[in-house]
């Protein structure tokens, strides 16, 4: 029994069950069996059957089978120890090119394999009550009676339970055969409000005529809670890997022994972009920052967030040097030009590859250290800062990383290079600010070519003239939407999407860009309606 409002469960396209009546199937099976016996063929030799191309052909036949997700099917699908076959493999073998002389050539084998596979679709090789094709569709093993899918048997078992008890919910408490709205409601209360739903709330929800609206209303109320958007709340903690705070160098309130920058602005901006329908792309495009309550993280009224747009001098006058954001409006790109980010990742470096790599990893989900997101730029790396990155073993990554980094090279970190002094005015520089002549200080440390490092870079194969453009291209990319939605998926579901859930996941992040207009809250309301979230 499925919840009426749950999306229809789709069988993978390559696994449509042939609609053969039981009698017709039995007749076909009998005829095939008789035909096999009548031919008097000798038993098929095992050596003819363990063919390395077979898993690929198997996956061409069943492209949507979970066993084929991202790789050819495992040999164990048909074999025990190749070439020996398991019960499913033996059943397929019995149907493969009957009447053709053995051993089969590879060509004949591959040509006739699909029909042999389909010939045993409706058979139940492991005698566990579930047909082979159902098992393949569900990702269970057609040769192992201990491995059975859930949903193919759901309907039958639930049907019997309904006859017996009238209501399956009362029998098991959960409907594991489809989207269980009450289960999703209870789970959402814990996820988004940080507490279990009361009995009254559950009863009220179960009795609701419009559960979808009731679930959305629950989320709306939870979105405003301390648990969700407060200091050290769910959203706040989601920013931890992006900000990587370190108390010992925090400035402002609760300053550490070496106060350099305050990460509270970063947390506040992150949370702001995730709530109230705000555009999440502001993470990488905002020219403002956000203050919370009275500016500290442990005060009353801490849910109050306020957008602040002050230029560096105004902010210096308002909050003092320890907390001021020192990048001018027109050079700001959200989180990646915040003072904390520049302090933490640019530090003393002329060409701050660490900053680019962190931005790429934290906001686009592409980790260059894991060879992810490599878009080599022809002629790169040019090694402007004399770091010997042209060596072949370095160049494979630096051909992407270096052009990715150039736009960061005009932003000051803590300091670095030789000469210059901190302050306002000619011949001086401000840490954590935009400074087009910054690289001149690095000639002695990074070589004479360092001043020729272009500000223009390349991100995802696209030229970007500066870091503001970098932020815009990044924020509009598929990678950005995918990464942010994946973070919430993992937070709420506990693991990355399984192969069978990729359809729902892809739809979700694509809708995030279009239907949801980059509103995280709208996306989350869709996420809790997915089967991945709502099927127990």
């Amino acid at each position: 029994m499925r919840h009426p409002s749950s999306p229809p469960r789709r069988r993978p396209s390559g696994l449509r069950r042939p609609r053969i009546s039981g009698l017709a199937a039995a007749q076909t099976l009998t005829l095939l069996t008789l035909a096999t016996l009548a031919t008097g063929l000798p038993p098929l030799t095992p050596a003819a059957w363990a063919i390395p191309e077979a898993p690929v052909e198997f996956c061409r036949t069943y492209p949507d089978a979970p066993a084929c997700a991202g790789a050819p099917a495992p040999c164990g699908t048909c074999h025990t120890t190749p070439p020996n076959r398991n019960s499913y493999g033996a059943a397929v073998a019995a149907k493969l090119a009957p009447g053709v002389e053995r051993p089969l050539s590879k060509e004949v084998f591959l040509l006739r394999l699909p029909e042999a596979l389909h010939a045993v679709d409706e058979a139940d090789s492991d005698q566990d009550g579930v047909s082979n094709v159902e098992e393949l569709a569900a990702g269970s093993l057609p040769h192992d009676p201990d491995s059975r899918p859930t949903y193919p048997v759901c309907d039958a078992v639930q049907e019997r339970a309904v006859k017996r008890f009238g209501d399956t919910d009362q029998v098991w408490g959960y409907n594991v055969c489809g989207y269980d709205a009450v289960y999703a409601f209870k789970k959402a209360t814990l996820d988004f409000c940080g507490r279990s739903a009361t009995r009254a709330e559950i009863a009220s929800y179960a009795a609701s005529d419009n559960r979808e609206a009731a679930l959305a209303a629950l989320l709306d109320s939870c979105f405003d809670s301390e648990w969700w958007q407060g200091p050290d709340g769910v959203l706040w903690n989601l920013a931890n890997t992006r900000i990587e705070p370190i108390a010992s160098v925090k400035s402002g309130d609760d300053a550490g022994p070496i106060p350099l920058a305050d990460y509270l602005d970063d947390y506040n901006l992150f949370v702001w972009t995730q709530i109230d329908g705000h555009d999440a792309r502001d993470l990488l495009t905002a020219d403002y920052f956000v203050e919370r309550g009275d500016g500290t993280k442990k005060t009353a009224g801490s849910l109050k967030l306020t957008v602040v747009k002050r230029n560096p001098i105004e902010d210096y006058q308002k909050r003092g040097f320890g907390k001021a954001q020192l990048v001018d409006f027109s050079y700001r790109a959200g989180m990646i030009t915040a003072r904390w980010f520049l302090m933490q990742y640019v530090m003393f470096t002329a060409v701050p590859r660490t900053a680019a790599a962190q931005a790429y990893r934290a906001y686009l989900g592409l980790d260059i250290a894991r060879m992810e997101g490599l878009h080599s730029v022809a002629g790169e790396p040019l090694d402007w800062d004399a770091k010997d990155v042209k060596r072949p073993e370095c160049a494979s990554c630096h051909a992407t990383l270096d052009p990715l980094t150039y736009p960061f090279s005009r932003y000051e970190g803590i300091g670095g290079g030789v000469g210059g002094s901190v302050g306002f005015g000619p011949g001086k520089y401000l840490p954590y600010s935009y400074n087009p002549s910054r690289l001149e200080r690095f000639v002695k440390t990074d070589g004479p070519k360092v001043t020729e490092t272009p500000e223009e870079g390349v991100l995802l194969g696209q030229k970007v003239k500066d870091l503001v453009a970098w932020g815009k291209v990044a924020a509009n990319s598929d990678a950005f939407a995918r990464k942010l939605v994946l973070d919430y998926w993992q937070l709420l579901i506990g693991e990355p999407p399984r192969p069978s859930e990729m359809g729902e996941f892809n739809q979700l992040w694509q809708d995030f860009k279009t239907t949801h207009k980059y509103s995280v809250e709208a996306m989350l309301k869709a996420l809790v309606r997915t089967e991945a979230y709502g099927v127990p």
Partner: protein
Amino acid sequence: MRRRVVAGWLRAAALVGVVVFATGCGDDKDSDTDKDAGAEVDTGPAKEPSREMVRSNRPRVRFKGGRRMATDLATALNLPRGELCKELGKFDCVDFVHNVALGGVEPYELGVREPLDQASVTTPIAVDRVALAACGQRAKLDFDTPESAFLFGDLAAATDATREAALKVTANRLYDQLLRRDANVDETAALVAFWDTAKAAAAKGADSATLARDYATLACFAVATSEEALFY
């Protein structure tokens, strides 16, 4: 249901093990079925348990984590969240001392920016610590001032003649408060039967008030540390 019990520091430590037998392992067939089902199964109070279970296709049962657990415990036992459990009477068990073990993060000084992938060795100990502290507090409050008791008033006031009825009421209240559902017949019977087991395990010469309070603490602990209470 299966219980995790690691509590060497309990005054009535011996009774904890008894709780496991009394309330957790009464029916092997049910346990096996639960495990196979991959999801919590509530057979309901009045209906015959079904032996025909459907295995979850994607059993994703997750630990609530310390903060949710503490919030739920505080609500269920009507205790101030800040007073639920404190080490040395000063440091909050959940937010501070056992924070990371209970699935929390501490990015500022420890660099723990994401919850641990898997429960640590000390996670069950920390869970037991918090649950036992909370249940112990509730029992103490109710037995010290039974006239304003929240959970264990009937038990505190029970005589030998009224004890069985009080035990049933207590069992139902525990399920209602901690699991937000009614106890079924087997669950009630297990908690009622636990009285005799607790009595047999009690120290020689223990008075009935002490026994009742220990029972209340441990019955609460058993339900509060069930899989159903801790996972979702």
